[in-house]
């Protein structure tokens, strides 16, 4: 309970609430009405089928394994990339986001070509790919909180004789628990509802409910069955997200220091540990990217530049591909809109979570889109906003709105834990000195908000850059995004298809790096001054 929160906070749930009502609840309701008016009996028979529950169990195990691996790799990276000052840090931080935006078909082909036939398809490969793709989720969410971690308490613990490990386990981890819980819940949900990677790298043991839903809608046209499966997925995912939200609410300590980057540790071993972590992290992220760069420069005749030089002329004069500059503009515009919408809606929902009582619920409700089957939501959105009386397709807003639905939960996962662990003594002091609640609020939360909102917006933009499903389902054929172009190319034979697809994937990687570094830069001046004010 914080006594000095301004009154308007009680209403901050309204815009996110309206957003969810219009773009999540309404389309699903339209779909539900359409499907049940057809036939309702199929729902029960699907719920009673053993396959459904068998797949649920398999997917839960796979998602748990993916989460553990993503945390094991992501936590050291979050530590290094978000806390220490070293040359190339901004680049490293942007690099971690790259796996998140690569289309799954590209990740799958890169993993295949890197690991060769030696690694059998199945659980291990799927878990590795999920951990790889979700590195950004862990590094960004935990990193946003770790960046504000002063290390003072660890120093105290060390002075009192605790080992480095002991200090980490007893002091650092508990204070990061909200962020770790939030990111673990998100990674679990992404892996549990995964589609592309599961289909491309998986085997029968790695099926997910989402893959069942796709088959039920697109192959069997069994809508009641799909509805039943989607319902089960929604219930399970909502439960996990609720647990994650509950765990992330119990924040142990509140930090007083404004965020600041630290210089590298003074000890040789500490310095080496940071460097080695950074290098290993970079290698993990870069290996598939390097494979992509190589494919963009190779043909069966050897090294070549022809895929790069033919980029503008491939399929020129047809409706298949738009010129690269147009696809890049389209992708960037969608990413910017998504970042704006998601940061606004998600930021307000996170702020609402600071208040007590009912309005706090919105931060939990806004996580739900993560659990709604993409195929289901896509069909619902098409029925609700893809035809008269309300056809939004031509406005170009439908895709950023669909992307924002997925990005809002990530924004909340980044922003809410940091807000909750912000020291509120400042606003108490300000209020005592006569500051109005709103002024006191910005004094307290402003600096934190500025940094975490930038991280959140970058993640939201990344979601949009890499998204394929909604972009092909709700888009106009004439304005394909870069991932849509890649997948179109990979749908036909020929070396050129593979080569130019690799070129576009490299372009996507570079776009992501530039975008994320640019966005991160906005937050940097603040960090610099604080770092100078607080020489460590």
């Amino acid at each position, binding site marked *: 309970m914080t006594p000095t929160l301004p*009154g308007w906070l009680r209403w901050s749930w*309204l815009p996110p609430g309206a957003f969810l009502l219009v773009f999540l609840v309404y389309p699903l309701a339209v779909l539900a009405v359409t*499907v049940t008016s057809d036939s309702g009996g199929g729902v029960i028979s699907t719920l009673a089928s053993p396959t459904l529950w068998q797949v649920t169990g398999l997917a839960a195990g796979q998602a748990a394994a993916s989460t553990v691996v993503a945390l094991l790799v992501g936590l050291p990276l979050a530590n290094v990339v978000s806390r220490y000052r070293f040359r190339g840090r901004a680049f490293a931080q942007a690099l971690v986001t790259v796996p998140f935006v690569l289309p799954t078909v590209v990740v799958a082909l890169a993993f295949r070509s890197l690991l060769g036939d030696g690694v059998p398809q199945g659980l291990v490969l799927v878990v590795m790919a999920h951990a790889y793709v979700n590195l950004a989720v862990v590094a960004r969410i935990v990193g946003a909180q770790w960046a504000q971690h002063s290390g003072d308490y660890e120093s105290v613990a060390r002075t009192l004789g605790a080992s480095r490990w002991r200090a980490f386990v007893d002091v650092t981890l508990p204070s990061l628990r909200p962020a770790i819980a939030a990111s673990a819940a998100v990674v679990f949900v992404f892996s549990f509802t995964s589609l592309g990677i599961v289909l491309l790298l998986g085997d029968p043991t790695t099926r997910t409910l989402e893959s069942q839903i796709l088959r039920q809608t697109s192959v*069997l046209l069994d809508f009641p069955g799909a509805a039943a499966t989607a319902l089960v997925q929604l219930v399970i995912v909502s439960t996990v997200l609720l647990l994650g939200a509950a765990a992330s609410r119990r924040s142990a300590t509140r930090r007083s220091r404004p965020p600041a980057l630290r210089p590298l540790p003074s000890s040789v071993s500490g310095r080496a540990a940071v460097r080695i972590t950074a290098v290993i992290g970079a290698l993990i992220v870069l290996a598939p990217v390097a494979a992509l760069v190589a494919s963009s420069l190779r043909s069966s005749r050897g090294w070549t530049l022809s895929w790069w030089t033919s980029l503008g002329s491939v399929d020129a004069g047809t409706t298949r591909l738009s010129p690269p500059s147009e696809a890049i503009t389209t992708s960037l515009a969608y990413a910017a809109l998504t970042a704006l919408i998601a940061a606004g809606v998600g930021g307000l929902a996170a702020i609402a979570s600071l208040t007590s009582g009912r309005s706090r619920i919105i931060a939990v409700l806004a996580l739900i889109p993560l659990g709604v089957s993409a195929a289901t939501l896509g069909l619902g959105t098409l*029925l609700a906003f893809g035809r008269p009386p309300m056809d939004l397709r031509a406005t170009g807003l439908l895709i950023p709105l669909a992307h924002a639905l997925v990005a809002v939960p990530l924004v909340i996962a980044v922003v809410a834990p940091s807000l909750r662990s912000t020291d509120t003594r400042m606003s108490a002091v300000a209020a005592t000195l006569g500051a109005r609640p709103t002024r006191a609020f910005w004094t307290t939360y402003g600096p934190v908000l500025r940094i975490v909102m930038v991280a959140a917006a970058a993640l939201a933009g990344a979601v949009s850059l890499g998204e394929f499903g909604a972009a092909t389902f709700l888009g106009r054929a004439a304005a394909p995004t870069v991932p849509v172009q890649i997948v179109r190319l990979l749908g036909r034979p020929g*070396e050129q298809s593979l080569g130019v697809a690799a070129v576009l994937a490299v372009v996507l990687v570079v776009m992501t790096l530039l975008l994320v570094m640019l966005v991160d830069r906005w937050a940097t001046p603040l960090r610099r001054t604080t770092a100078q004010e607080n020489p460590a």
Partner: protein
Amino acid sequence: MRRRTSPVITASIAVLASALLLAGCASSGADGSDAVEPAASEPQTVQLLAHDSFVVSDDLITALKEDTGITLEIISGSDAGTMVAGAVLAAGNPTGDVMFGVDNTLLSRALEADVFEPYESPELTSVVPALRADTAEGRVTPIDFGDVCINIHDAAFTDIDAPSTLDDLIDPTYRDMLVVEDPGTSSPGLAFLLATIARYGDGWTDYWAALRDNDVKVAASWTDAYFGEFSGGGEGTRPIVVSYATSPPAEIVYAEEPKPEAPSTSVMADGCYRQVEYAGVLAGARNPEGARAVIDWLLSEGVQSDVPMSMFVFPAREGIALPAVFTDFVPTIDSPLQLPPDDVAAGIAGWLAEWGAVMGR
């Protein structure tokens, strides 16, 4: 007193802003297409709902506008299955005026849901006789056809003969060589399953058990099978793949310059499954007149001549000259396998379940 004004004002602004946002969305929805296409509210714009593999040359769209005044807006509907699913759910108040790309495996489901309204194009008389009768009582119009066939990487068969029939594929000589797509997630994968059902009848499960024992590999998608597993497509190791009769010419067209003279892959003429793609006027279309004109356009000589090189399928219209890569490298498929659309609609769920049981998937 003053302390209460600020939150109330802020809250009102928030409510107003959301209301404005919603109103903005609603109004831009009503006339949203006007913003982009000036002719949207007039009957000159036609929305063509097509799957993501639909490609046509830009000049033909320009020619359509010049000849008829129609501005064609192509709306992407993802893959054919998802597109048809959306059309079935939206039946009566469709998300476009005309749909292209429903094929003979999905046709029955679309017809059951009354997705289309009848239209008989005057151009239909030019369609090859075998397809002409095939219009589901005039509700759809055949636009193109193609065959899903076994493709072979020739370099792997210098010492042994390449397989020439479906029966050969279960021969231990070809153990570990074949990659197919999962019929539950891939359109050519489903076509190949239907080919085996058309060929072997009730014995199809035995055939698949034999394929399984011969170490067939199942990939999730065509992309994964062709580029990931097939030695003739990318970095794979298996020399036999389920692909299309037109994959070898496409391999040349999309090769590095200077283009090779001949493809490195060839087609097994036995066991091909014929896919026919249809277009139809969507029931409840805002511009049915324009939709019918677009169907005539799809069957016009211009579009039909464009179809081979842009989509790598065969034109439904008679007497269209085929490009040299087609005449040189696509074998004539004399008796392609096919199942009646009604049988497919009735059987597909059971077949996929049985296939899953046999293959352990």
